[in-house]
């Protein structure tokens, strides 16, 4: 409790920054495993009742029609420092839960789309989703035992990815490789955000001769002194 008191008094006086990262991909591709490898707390699951709006309830193949299905949502947490926390959310892998995605994606920094080279097509919907919404993502090729090792370039071309989208190899069970995939995502998102703010300022001003944007954001006053 003393911790909270000092937290509010604020040795740094900063408000908490929470960052949302999604772990997407087809059913059974290793999303839950990846979240479990990275989280500092036991993987938490929460559930959402299947509500009518936007939910394709009649696509419950082979299951009797019902509306009380719950969507299990995996999530985990990584504390970078006091007041700077990453939350990981495993997206529901089945199509009938797409209505949950918009809520999950709102305000997300980006996504790792997990791919299994034996069933690459399973990650197409995730790739499409993030591409269409301009949400930064990387593709994490989960190297299962016995899975044929593809070169990342082969995966990139099979998924028809933009050249700037990183493709990384990882093993969802191995923390270090999952962490590297996460680093690749945050660096990529950083680049995307910088480019966008660059475009924004380029639109407002005559284009500077091909140089990198020097002033990334119209930063509000009150930038903390170093």
């Amino acid at each position, binding site marked *: 409790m003393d911790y909270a008191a000092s937290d509010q008094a604020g040795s740094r006086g900063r408000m908490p920054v929470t960052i949302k990262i999604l772990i997407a991909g087809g059913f059974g591709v290793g999303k839950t495993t990846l979240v479990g490898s990275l989280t500092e707390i036991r993987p*938490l699951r929460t559930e959402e009742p299947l509500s009518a709006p936007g939910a394709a309830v009649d696509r419950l193949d082979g299951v009797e029609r019902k509306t009380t299905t719950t969507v299990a949502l995996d999530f985990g947490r990584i504390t970078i420092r006091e007041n700077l926390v990453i939350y990981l959310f495993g997206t529901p892998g089945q199509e009938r839960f797409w209505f949950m995605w918009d809520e999950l994606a709102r305000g997300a920094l980006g996504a790792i789309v997990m791919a299994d080279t034996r069933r690459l097509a399973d990650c197409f919907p995730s790739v499409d989703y993030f591409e269409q919404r301009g949400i930064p993502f990387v593709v994490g090729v989960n190297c299962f035992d016995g899975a044929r090792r593809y070169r990342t370039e082969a995966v990139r071309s099979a998924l028809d990815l933009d050249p700037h989208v990183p493709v990384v190899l990882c093993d969802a069970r191995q923390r270090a490789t999952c962490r590297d995939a996460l680093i690749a995502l945050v660096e990529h998102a950083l680049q995307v955000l910088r480019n966008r703010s660059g475009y924004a300022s380029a639109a407002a001003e005559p284009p500077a001769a091909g140089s990198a944007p020097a002033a990334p954001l119209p930063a509000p006053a009150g930038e903390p002194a170093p």
Partner: protein
Amino acid sequence: MPSHDDHWLDEEAGPVVRPYAVIRGRTRPSGEKLDLIAIITAVRGVRLDPSSLDPEHLEVLRLCRLPTSVAELAADLDLPLGVVRILLGDLQERSLVSIHHPIPPARLPDMQVLKEVVDGLRRL
């Protein structure tokens, strides 16, 4: 009064009170939809009137004595997010919790925090 020994029913009995009975059938919170990673903190030093609060409200307040995300609250309470949002809406109306909404990455005042994230992840 029996204490918090609630193991007289096992899990197979199912929930004793169905989740939406807790919130009296309401399905929408009164305010805006709370983000999963909004941070909730119980306001300190407030005199509670237990008769105006349900046990679930008190449980929420107990869980967020330290700042806690909406998603973690839902998991710890073992209640659907929709129910937790309504409970939080009730508590917010009574000024019993403070809510810190997340800043979307595109609106971060600077990119320094993301560089800190990368450095922090490298140290994991």
